[in-house]
């Protein structure tokens, strides 16, 4: 019984949130890794691209809510998401056309591209703050919980409940579908094969008649769609606040580098490792250990490795450790 309580506690505070967070990071990291694989630069504007897609989704969600359209018990935002995706894709393509293509023609250094993407990041961030403002926006509606903490406590007959939010389940399901589709696309379709060929060896791909502009366009479309989905799921699960999309870049880049740059499987692996590390390292294990040990063994301290204030430090540590020990990442990727 005590062991089950400990497991329920651990599931409620570590496994469930880390899984949802990992899935959101994975979608973001996939976008970053794709851009790196094809365009060969670290796209700092990816976080703001997520934010932009989410913002449009929110605006459309509000419009739909005003019109009385609803797909209860599911959040209305899912209905609005396709428009958010389209908006993010348009933004990505416009930015590529107006900014990145110029540097591609110049055959600029990847570091130049990275700096340029910082400029694009600020531009999109500015647009977002003008349109929706810097404040917190809440747009989640529909049923909040699949199972609430109190209900699950009763159903399981335990002292500890496992609360699962609808947004968390949606996040995991949508991520699974999108990732499955992406792998099918990259492995089986002609365009996907062209992308992989282009990523492996640009010159060889050009010689075999692959149109580079088309590959780049498809790459932006996929990355932007992933960004909009990731941002919306993150916003549904937590809250939408423009500022955090700058912060979330760090775990996303950590995940990308950890998994191996340019490696889609690595990005997913990396995302879950980063998410679980962040949550586990900052979790206080006091109550967990109290359930496991005899009653009088209860620890006095919180048994917490790092204060939650240092959550972001975990991403930094992973980033530095990977770059020092295995710069190629878990699945051998490119080295920046």
């Amino acid at each position, binding site marked *: 019984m005590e062991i089950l309580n400990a497991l329920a506690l651990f599931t*409620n505070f570590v496994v469930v949130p880390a899984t949802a967070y990992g899935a959101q990071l994975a979608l973001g990291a996939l976008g970053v890794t794709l851009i790196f694989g094809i365009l060969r630069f670290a796209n700092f504007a990816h976080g703001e691209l997520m934010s932009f897609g989410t913002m449009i989704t929110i605006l459309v969600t509000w419009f739909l809510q005003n019109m009385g359209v609803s797909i209860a018990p599911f959040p209305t935002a899912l209905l609005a998401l396709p428009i958010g995706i389209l908006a993010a894709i348009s933004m990505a393509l416009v930015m590529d056309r107006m900014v990145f293509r110029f540097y591609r023609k110049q055959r600029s250094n990847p570091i130049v591209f990275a700096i340029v993407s910082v400029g694009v990041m600020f531009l999109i961030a500015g647009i977002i703050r003008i349109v929706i403002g810097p404040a917190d926006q809440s747009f989640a509606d529909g049923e909040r919980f699949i199972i609430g903490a109190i209900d699950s406590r009763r159903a399981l007959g335990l002292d500890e409940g496992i609360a699962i939010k609808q947004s968390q389940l949606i996040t995991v399901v949508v991520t699974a579908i999108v990732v499955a589709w992406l792998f099918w696309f990259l492995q089986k379709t002609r365009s996907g094969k062209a992308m992989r060929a282009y990523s492996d060896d640009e010159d060889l791909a050009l010689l075999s008649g692959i149109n580079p502009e088309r590959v780049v366009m498809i790459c932006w479309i996929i990355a932007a769609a992933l960004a909009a989905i990731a941002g919306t799921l993150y916003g549904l699960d937590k809250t939408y606040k423009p500022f955090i999309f700058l912060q979330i870049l760090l775990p996303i880049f950590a995940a990308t580098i950890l998994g191996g740059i340019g490696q889609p499987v690595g990005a997913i692996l990396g995302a879950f490792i980063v998410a679980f590390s962040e949550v586990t390292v900052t979790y206080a294990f006091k109550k967990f250990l109290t359930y496991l040990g005899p009653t009088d063994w209860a620890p006095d301290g919180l048994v917490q490795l790092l*204060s*939650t204030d240092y959550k972001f430090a975990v991403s930094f540590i992973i980033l530095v450790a990977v770059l020092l020990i295995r710069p190629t990442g878990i699945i051998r990727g490119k080295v920046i």
Partner: protein
Amino acid sequence: MGKLSTLLFSAALSTAVVAGASAQEQVKIGMLQGFTGPTESLVKPMALGGELAIKEVSDSGLLLGGREVVSVRGDSTCIDAAAATAAADRLVTSDGVHGINGATCSGATTAILNNVVRANGIVMISPSATSPALSEIEDDGYFFRTAPSDARQGQIIAEILDRRGIKSAALTYTNNDYGKGLADAIQAAYEAKGGKITAVAAHEDGKADYSAEIGTLASAGGEVLIVAGYLDQGGKGIIQASLDTGAFDKFVLPDGMVGEALTDNFGDMLDGSIGTNPGTDSPGASMLAELASGKGFKGDDPYVPEAYDASALLLLAMQSAGSTDSAVYKDHILKVANAPGEKIYPGELAKALQILADGGDIDYVGGTALELIEPGESAGSFRETEIKGGKWETEMYH
């Protein structure tokens, strides 16, 4: 400019003294406030409020056998300790005031207290210095304040928890001076009462996700979660995350968290949670507002009632002691401020002076429902609320 005008003002006053040449010496109250600097807009009505009480006492003709009372202004600034000390020094040594109503800011007050008040032995009552450090400072019994210390809310919360039989609580605060100070005060007061703070975790405002913070606090346990934060910032996220994970369902919410926005957002999910914020049910505040109407300032502006009460306390203590000597009347301040005795509201100072002259007791209530506690500071009035059916309902006043 400010200094020049105060100089002219005091010069005019001293001429008045000579010209008046009354049989009895005037009673002088130093109005030592931050007329220039960051508090200048705050201080204007405060000084007028303080002088309203002085005029009321002077006009009554009952103070110490009908002595006239005048106000002598001095500029304590807010951030310049040297200027504050110089101004206080001038008031005491050159103008010869019998008591000081001031200073405005905690820093200036501390400087004056150390350099002038203790050295010269003069009573000073600050209407607006709220730093908890002033509770512990050595003052030889000459310093009082009519505003509560920031630490006071911590004690109020500890008392509420104690009364309601809540034995353990987790504590989270917004990571700034306000949050940290309040959290320290709550923890110290609650532990002194035998309560147990299971964990203290800071939270940063402006994040999207507070589940990690809640994970920590939930692991430590506790019957309630005290959230010393802001209701439109991290505090809201903390509550959201605890409700989502079922970690806590009852909260204790200090002033930064009390507001309609919180109940609008969470509705009856917060039922049973407790809030505290400054507030009083005493009629004194509205009586003072009425008294001030038509006199060019508002009686319910911030710290105006405190300033009125500071002047009134000084003069009533003098009447009670039968002396304008600080060393004598400083021991009467707590006596006139607290029970037992006849309750005195703003505008009733003449009545109070008469009672004291007849040897009776008064309990000065004033504009702030004043109750002085050791070491000579206002207990402050706080409202205890509980959320019932998604609405803040007043439980009682402290």
